[in-house]
């Protein structure tokens, strides 16, 4: 029974945190978000060099073939700095989809592992819930498939060398590989509330290749990859909450009002204590979900979706409480773009709505057997 990262994983998280913390101010983040690519290319390369891009890819493609613990470490450290470099949506989630398919072109996996390119996953459609079958259609078969439809909230589509697009074809649900510069693609670029670059992408007769198999099996593989991403993003959330609450405690110690520091006001101090409890409890859930994922990888137990939903619902709620409290405890300054705390709050807010959002996750949970199943961390 061990719910902690091992020494190597801790060291990996620290090396990422070190690389980020030296640069990441609110100003740096703002500039990176506003740059041509939407993140800091140098920093992305630095992190790729210490292995961040290779984690989830097998050794055949020069990856590190690491486990859920390493992904936790990376995303936790990224979260601690509210970093916007696109490892989860641009590398890890695409790599899981590609690997699961068994039919991914080698050069794609190798490029992702090397940090030379990113891919983008295009699944959300405007006004359509995550679990619905895609309205985007795949027509034709074999090497002659084309896609038509509109995807939204596609993270970093403007920089992606490849798009992994979900669509409904004759055989049902499928994930299709599309070149970023393929014909028939129209993009409207925008951003999320946390300043991550996203696009609406329209496909009209765009050539595509089916990854793996279509139909229910394809959907299950897609859902399992997304469940991994849901658990991974919770590590980022815990990193964000951890650092945001520490920054807030520091603020209470230094900021003066009425001639004394805010830490003199017991009402605020008690709220900081509640915040600490909130973060530590959320950390435990994220670690539990990560450990479950590692365990599932070793056994035949594939309850990843349920684990991801359970954990997501809990941590999204904690993320909201923490995001709101850290801003409130900062007062007006916590609302401004120039202080880190607002970026932490904004990113936490986006995470709550990621991969279909918390309300949809709650609906799935409440319809499942989860509410009537006793919780237990220990599996044996």
């Amino acid at each position, binding site marked *: 029974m061990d719910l902690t990262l091992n020494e190597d994983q801790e060291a990996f998280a620290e090396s990422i945190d070190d690389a980020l913390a030296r640069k990441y101010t609110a100003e740096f983040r703002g500039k990176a978000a506003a740059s041509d690519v939407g993140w800091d290319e140098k920093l992305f390369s630095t992190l790729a060099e210490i292995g961040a891009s290779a984690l989830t890819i097998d050794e055949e493609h020069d990856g590190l073939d690491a486990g859920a613990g390493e992904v936790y470490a990376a995303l936790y450290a990224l979260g601690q700095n509210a970093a916007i470099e696109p490892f989860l949506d641009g590398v890890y989630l695409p790599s899981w989809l590609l690997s699961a398919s068994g039919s991914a072109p080698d050069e794609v996996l190798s490029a992702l592992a090397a940090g030379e390119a990113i891919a983008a996953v295009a699944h959300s459609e405007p006004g359509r819930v995550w679990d619905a079958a895609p309205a985007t259609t795949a027509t034709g078969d074999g090497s002659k498939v084309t896609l038509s439809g509109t995807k939204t909230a596609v993270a970093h589509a403007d920089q992606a060398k490849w798009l992994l697009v979900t669509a409904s074809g004759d055989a049902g649900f499928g994930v299709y590989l599309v070149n970023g510069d393929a014909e028939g693609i129209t993009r409207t670029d925008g951003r999320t509330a946390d300043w991550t670059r996203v696009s609406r992408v329209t496909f009209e007769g765009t050539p595509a290749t089916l990854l793996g198999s279509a139909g229910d099996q394809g959907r299950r593989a897609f859902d399992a990859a997304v469940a991994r991403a849901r658990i991974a993003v919770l590590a980022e959330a815990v990193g964000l909450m951890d650092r945001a609450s520490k920054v807030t405690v520091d603020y209470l110690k230094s900021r003066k009002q009425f001639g004394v520091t805010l830490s003199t006001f017991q009402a605020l101090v008690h709220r900081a204590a509640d915040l600490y409890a909130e973060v530590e409890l959320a950390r435990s859930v994220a670690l539990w979900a990560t450990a479950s994922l590692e365990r599932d990888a070793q056994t035949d137990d594939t309850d990843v979706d349920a684990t991801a939903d359970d954990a997501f619902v809990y941590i999204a709620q904690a993320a909201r409480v923490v995001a709101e409290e850290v801003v409130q405890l900062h007062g*007006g300054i*916590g609302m*401004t773009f120039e202080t880190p705390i607002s970026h932490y709050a904004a990113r936490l807010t*986006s995470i709550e709505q*990621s991969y279909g959002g918390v309300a949809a996750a709650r609906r799935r949970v409440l319809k499942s057997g989860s509410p009537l199943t006793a919780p237990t961390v220990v599996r044996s």
Partner: protein
Amino acid sequence: MDLEYTPEEQRFRDELRTVFYEKVPAEIRERVVRGQISREDIVASQRILHEHGLAVPHWPTQWGGKKWTATQQNIYASELQRAAVPTPLAFNVSMVGPIIAEFGSQEQKEKFLPATANLDIWWSQGFSEPEAGSDLAGLKTTAIRDGDEYVINGQKTWTTLGQYGDWMFLLARTNPGAERKQQGISFILVDMKTPGIERRPIKLIDGSVEVNEFFFDDVRVPVSNLVGEENKGWTYAKFLLGNERNGIAQVGTSQRVFAELVDAAKETDVEEGTLADDPDFRSRLHTAKMRLLALEATQLRVAGASADGKPDPASSLLKLEGTRLLQSLTALRLDAGGTDSVLVGDTEGTDGTPVGLSSEHAASTAALQYLNMRKLSIFGGSNEIQRGVIAKAVLGL
């Protein structure tokens, strides 16, 4: 007990509605709903209201006021919010206007009040400073008399919409040596075109520029710009606190947001049926509904109970719960939209706020509004300050 307005009150409300819904352009009200109004919208709307005698109803009748009852004032605020009409600029109609009307010279009244009511002058508030937020009396800006002028030095911050300000009313120390920190403060009017004023816009996390910082470096203003007596500024500032009971609970706004939320839920398809069928969402809607009913009823009780217009500690209760509720409604809208709600387009609205990527969905600006609405429990006396006021003034703690 009676749950109905009198026939006169109903007539009064209908007249207001005619102006709010038929005279104020629908496009402006639509932009209020989306949280994307511009300076021009605010000016246009206030001028239309003023044209119909509805911009400064609580001012003295001589300057356009109406002598309304507390209930009428309450109807006015609620209906205005519900109709999504931009609230007349608070700095003009609720702050500097009443102060000048009460304490200003005849010359000041004639010079400023008509232009203030019609928003020909856009006023900014110069109260908060970097080291004087919740602790306003800790302000450090000085206005030292030099002949017929005051020489102002210092820094003001959190100046909402200060980028549009023609004039600023500010608090500054005319007697920096005063014994208590509340003493020696004066209330001074400053033409923002005066040399020596520098503005630094403060971008908020949602991308908007709503607040600003102002630096005053030897800014010289005529002594005739002093309102009331020198060193009495703190008294005038306190006159404002608690003066804004009507509308502070934002009942009308929350009612409008609640209705939008129900409409959106009915139109949002989920896995089975629409969001309006989702038991969890229904439960959260009902909680919000009853909180809103409790808030409205409390506001009606308070409005009825103290018609003398004096500051009432109940306004702290209304602000506390009113802001919490409106914030939780924006959170509900965020959750309703799911992934759609965090999307923001790249085209910018007139005030710099980006427009939603998928503007056909109510969700499109949900995350921005959610983040922006965090200000409600901070600005204008934080919820922590309101709890302190309740504890002291109501509970004697």
